[in-house]
């Protein structure tokens, strides 16, 4: 992964691997955790939990809607089910079950969608979760988290397990740069300010956090001072951090590895519109499915790069009144 390399960020684990390891550790501490997977344990990395706690691990085969329904039932009996599959299959295949067996009855179920975004690469659009955040946000009462790196993923998984209520966590396939080299203070719903700035605020989550940091560096070379917010929680959104960013910097760019409609960009724009409207630029996957290809090629092709964030920032700053 090229993102973040120019500013010296080191590659760490994939966020799916970090999730799998964190879950296995938490299994010791929280005996109520049960894990449900759909024939992709070696992809989602729930295999780590399965090895340590085989009696609390269930492989339901390729049957996502059944998995989510079963999780709802187990949660009703006091278990903390963690359901994992590819983000697209979990959210899209089981959406009604998520709605009726989890969201509406407010069940304490954790959903983890892996292989999110286009950075899965060669397997192509059918395996890419690019609508998952919008779908998860649409579910009443859901918490939606998109961690940036292995450090934050570990904290996010812990926070999700200790949160009482449905949570969706989005993780990815490739190894990603470590953003939190000095550890990570993680609170659900509270953005992390990774860098302060005056002229524009770059708001990102997932792998785009590394890209935003790189973009801030590029902007600095052009004399533009950019704040960077890691908006790991899309819902509930940190409206205060957005208002503050709007007041202090007067322009916002939102970068995410997701379709344009209903993701982080939409949610940030809603908060800004209500509290302190400023020009906002968007870097995302637009409204069309991508293609198969090398992950870095795809990210470049679709403009999910530091350069494009920096360009978008300049254009957005130009729209300030």
């Amino acid at each position: 992964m090229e993102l973040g390399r120019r500013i010296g960020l080191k590659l760490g684990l994939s966020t799916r691997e970090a999730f799998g390891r964190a879950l296995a550790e938490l299994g010791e501490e929280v005996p109520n955790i049960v894990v449900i997977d759909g024939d992709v344990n070696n992809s989602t990395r729930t295999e780590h939990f399965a090895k340590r706690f085989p009696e609390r691990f269930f492989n339901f085969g390729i049957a996502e809607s059944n998995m989510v329904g079963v999780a709802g039932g187990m949660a009703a009996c006091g278990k903390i089910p963690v359901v994992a599959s590819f983000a697209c299959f979990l959210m899209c295949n089981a959406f009604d079950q998520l709605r009726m067996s989890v969201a509406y009855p407010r069940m304490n179920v954790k959903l983890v969608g892996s292989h999110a975004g286009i950075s899965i690469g060669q397997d192509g659009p059918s395996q890419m979760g690019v609508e998952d955040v919008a779908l998860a946000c649409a579910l009443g009462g859901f918490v939606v988290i998109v961690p940036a790196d292995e450090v934050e993923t570990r904290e996010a998984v812990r926070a999700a397990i200790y949160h009482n209520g449905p949570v969706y966590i989005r993780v990815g396939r490739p190894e990603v740069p470590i953003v939190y080299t000095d550890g990570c203070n993680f609170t659900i719903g509270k953005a992390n300010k990774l860098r302060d700035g005056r002229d524009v605020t770059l708001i990102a989550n997932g792998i785009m956090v590394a890209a935003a940091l790189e973009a801030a560096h590029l902007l600095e070379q052009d004399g533009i001072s950019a704040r960077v917010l890691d908006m790991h929680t899309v819902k509930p959104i940190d409206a205060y951090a957005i208002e503050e960013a709007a007041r202090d910097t007067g322009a916002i760019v939102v970068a995410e590895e997701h379709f344009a409609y209903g993701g982080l960009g939409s949610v940030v724009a809603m908060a800004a519109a209500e509290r302190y409207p400023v020009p906002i630029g968007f870097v995302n996957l637009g409204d069309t499915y991508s293609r198969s290809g090398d992950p870095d090629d795809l990210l470049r092709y679709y403009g999910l790069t530091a350069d494009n964030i920096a360009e978008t920032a300049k254009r957005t700053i130009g729209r300030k009144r």
Partner: protein
Amino acid sequence: MAVAPALGIEQLREKARLIRKHIIVMTTLAGSGHPTTALSMVEVVVALYFGGILRYDPSNPYWEDRDRFILSKGHGCPALYAVLAEAGYFPVEQLKTLRQLGSPLEGHPNMRALPGIEASTGSLGQGLSIGLGHALAARLDGRDYHVFTMVGDGECDEGQVWEAAMAAKHFKVDNLTCIVDHNKYQQTGCVFDVMDYRPFADKWRAFGWHVQEIDGHDLEQVLSALRLAKSKPIKGTPTVIIAHTIKGKGVSFLEHRSDMHGRAIKIDEAKRALEELGWSWEGELD
């Protein structure tokens, strides 16, 4: 053009050997993909396209009266791409662009990118329903085409497969055939260890389907099963062909392997694989 001229059994065997070569070369060069998934389905697709079963015309891929082949287990697409290329849908050289940005040969089939692909698949469980849609449309339009859908045996975990099975019988659809590539493995292990749905053939019978069980690598059995299915042996009844196959078939060190799902092999392994298949690898893998 009506039916592509049917090849004799020896020529079909030779075609199967050629398709296996393409699969190894394409996925190795791509560096990713599902070669073992593709290798188990070779005889079935070879029989469909070159054994005089499917009515198709590569120069007119959207011909309304064509028979349909819908690959529900979309991750097996290297086998289908290889067959479509050999059938003349696109140049064989293009196979080497598999999974590259801009290539119509995506990691999973994209019907909007590649003529000859009947459905965009890759999320398992959906192809039989899509096939049923084509089959019902044929009835509405008074057309006599036949629809073949291939599903994986792991894919049969999905409830939608059985919803489609139930509906096909209910609507008395007999121009629909489901082929199960029963290679006994899915992603994380043997299908019966992951989700034991046995008795499998009886389940299809209970859903009202006509069932044929065959050795899916024996071209004669494959051909006669496909011919019988297409002849609509029982009026108002869809047919399922349970093709017993070997995941990774044709390459000794890939056969029956539970840990090779979704993994491409390295260049040196590919050389060995091609040698085993009786091909020279000289100039193939660069």
